């Protein structure tokens, strides 16, 4: 069943952070519906290169939905219209002949545009640096089975740990909040006994760092959960809230 479609792309082009940027329109003919979205951009880039123009810059790496590097807003939806899918795993068969696709970078004050669709997501790393770890020096770990972890807790921790750090939650949130990202890490570590000793400090420091980076505030709109390619639940945000209250009101952390 070989099918191909014609689509029109309206892509955000911005030469550098300082550039004002604009949309450019590219008609694309005979796009195989078996192509992934990024392969479709590859085809366009090859054509642009041949015609002496600069190809569109976009971040991508593993192309199997796990590294979290890719991402763009397609017709108003981060990672495109399919549920639980990264842009690299989105295939052209989900579009129709004649579709107009408006492709924009993640928009957030905390994610400045580097070029075209590429943004700087270093802010997410900053949140992790503030406390997204368990302090255990190499070699000092106890026997792995000496700390039983209830299966349910391990499963929930894994649900949260599935976050790929792509930033779609921030891009999707009408407030530009990074709560789902921060919550996934706090929740993952708070659910495990290994993470409890540092839980209070971690919650306070990560939230404090997040607040200082220019993200918006969570108002429980749940667009993050709906657009997250790993379908991470806002129940983890509720857990972050609990951890934060507990840390502020019932721990010695200041």
């Amino acid at each position: 069943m070989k099918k191909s479609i014609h689509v029109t792309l309206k892509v955000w082009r911005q030469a550098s952070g300082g550039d004002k940027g604009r949309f450019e329109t590219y008609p694309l003919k005979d796009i195989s519906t078996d192509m992934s979205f990024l392969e479709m951009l590859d085809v366009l880039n090859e054509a642009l290169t041949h015609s002496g123009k600069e190809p569109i810059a976009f971040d991508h790496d593993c192309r199997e939905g796990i590294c979290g590097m890719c991402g763009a807003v397609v017709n108003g939806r981060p990672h495109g219209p399919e549920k639980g899918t990264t842009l690299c795993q989105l295939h052209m068969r989900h579009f129709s002949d004649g579709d107009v696709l408006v492709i924009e970078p993640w928009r957030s004050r905390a994610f400045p545009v580097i070029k075209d669709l590429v943004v700087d997501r270093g802010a997410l790393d900053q949140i992790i640096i503030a406390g997204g770890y368990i302090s255990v020096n190499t070699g000092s770990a106890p026997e792995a089975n000496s700390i039983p972890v209830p299966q349910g807790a391990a499963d929930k921790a894994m649900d949260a740990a599935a976050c790929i750090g792509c930033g779609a939650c921030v891009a999707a949130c009408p407030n530009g909040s990074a709560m789902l990202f921060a919550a996934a890490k706090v929740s993952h570590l708070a659910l495990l006994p290994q993470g409890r000793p540092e839980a209070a400090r971690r919650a306070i420091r990560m939230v404090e760092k997040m607040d200082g980076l220019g993200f918006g505030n969570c108002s429980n709109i749940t667009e993050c959960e709906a657009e997250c390619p790993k379908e991470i639940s806002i129940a983890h945000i509720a857990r972050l809230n609990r951890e934060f209250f507990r840390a502020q009101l019932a721990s010695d952390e200041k």
Partner: protein
Amino acid sequence: MELNAKIPEGPLPEKWDRHRFELKLVSPANKRKFDIIVVGTGLAGGSASAALAELGYNVKTFCIQDSPRRAHSIAAQGGINAAKNYTNEGDSIWRLFYDTIKGGDFRSREGNVYRLAQISNAIIDQCVAQGVPFAREYGGLLANRSFGGAQVSRTFYARGQTGQQLLLGAYSAMMRQVAAGRVRLFPRREMLDLVVIDGRARGIVTRNLLTGAMETHSAHAVVLATGGYGNVYFLSTNAMSSNVTAAYRCYKRGACFANPCFTQIHPTCIPVHGTYQSKLTLMSESLRNDGRVWVPVKAGDKRRPEEIPEAERDYYLERRYPSFGNLVPRDVASRAAKAQCDAGKGVGETGLAVYLDFRDAIRRDGRAVIEKKYGNLFQMYEKITGEDPYKTPMMIYPAVHYTMGGLWVDYNLMSTLDGLFVLGEANFSDHGANRLGASALMQGLADGYFIIPYTIGGYFAGTPLETVDGTHPAFGEAIESSRKRIDTLLAVDGRRTVDDFHRELGRIMWDYCGMSRNNEGLEKAKGMIRALRAEFRENVRVPGENETFNQSLERAGRVADFLEFAELMVTDALARQESCGGHFNEAYQTPDHEALRDDAHFCHVAAWEYQGEDREPVLHKEPLVFENVTLAQRSYK
């Protein structure tokens, strides 16, 4: 050059203990006087950065992506092996060691592999303590599953995302050291050259991918953890940015490259669907537990699979390997699929696929059982291909997956260049000619957490190292030559794009230096690679300039190196006149088409030394000595 692997004396189980005792130590107060560069932030680089910084060294860590968390270790699905014997099946360090040596078709060092098995348990402890959410039994203790090439369940896993979780563990340990000020992180940097001063690695040149700026970094040692070179084939399961450049530049600066022709081709990948395809996706090999592999009996049969009656299907694996059936090892399954497609029996639009059929399993166990076992894989398959594997058989084809070859290292993980240490997939050390499933993660973390922290100390303590900084003329020279390479690429302004060349190179390598090789084809490939390389230098088009974020330029540099490196692979494949593991030379096979080793002549590591532009490299042989295992022929009939 004399290759000295520096394997410690003494009985196998005592070698590592003894070596650690004999290694000189750097006192805690003195560690802060040493700077270490770590290139790459996958399992090996991330864990090494964390562990070295914890000891008090000053670490500078570089990665090509926007964040260290994105290195391609993240894509590993299955799991990580350890000899914990939690399942009480009689597993032991010795058994893990033996399985790994045998799985590698007896082309790896006993001492290294035994050490790997010894360390495996501590890795699990470390990762659990970091908060890696491994699968657990209802009682709260760790769960295990079985994996290819072993008769015990020793694989620890976190759903289908074990690599991701282990990487995030190493990443978080490293980020803790960033917070402590002991690791300085340099994302979006590509290593373009190694700086060697007085025969020792003392620094690197990097290109800032955002600005194009050439930067120099000096240190007392350089740790390379830049992964494998599978992308020389263009299509592979590797990430798009995985490349050989850093390793290849070290090779050009004097580090020997070992066994470059050892590549692993994984049998169950989603087939190529069109000429625009950019990468291949792996499907866990566990699918072969219930799926039956077949092709039509008649070549060129274009009917839909459902329309082909039982009598006209050839379940070739079950037919050829009655006792192992669909569960033959990776290399055997891959070669068999290729043979069918070469005979014109391949299916799908391209004719480069075979069926993996779950019809009988669904009839036998019911859809619910199959869904429980493989639901997420079926869903992934449907997402990519748009076909429902519950109704129509999956189509699969082998794909390049891992490279066992890499820079030659001794027992200390140091290359033939003093001060250059190589970890993880970038080195050649532990997997011989074929890697077992769930062993790559083990090796990367063993190297980073538990080997380099000791051996690098031994190097520092035993070597007088003068202070050098970026003003040393060697840095200027390295910057100059890097800049020249970039200027040359930008100046060509030819007609063909970088990807176009890369795709053609991949085709050559896949056809002549892929699953099945022969001397004639390899010779032919050598000529074709040279011709393509010459055309690349005349006719490549790299748009844009150096001083901006320029992804075409990044790729051009990597493909330029692949075009040189590919020839080294072919040279190595030609020199190894035997078949072993992933290297299958058609002239050397048993009557039933199995790989036929030649232990009398090729029981060695082939380490290649660079001799200069367009000159044949020199081969050094490190003999492999087996004192504890008996070399045997693998059979799966």
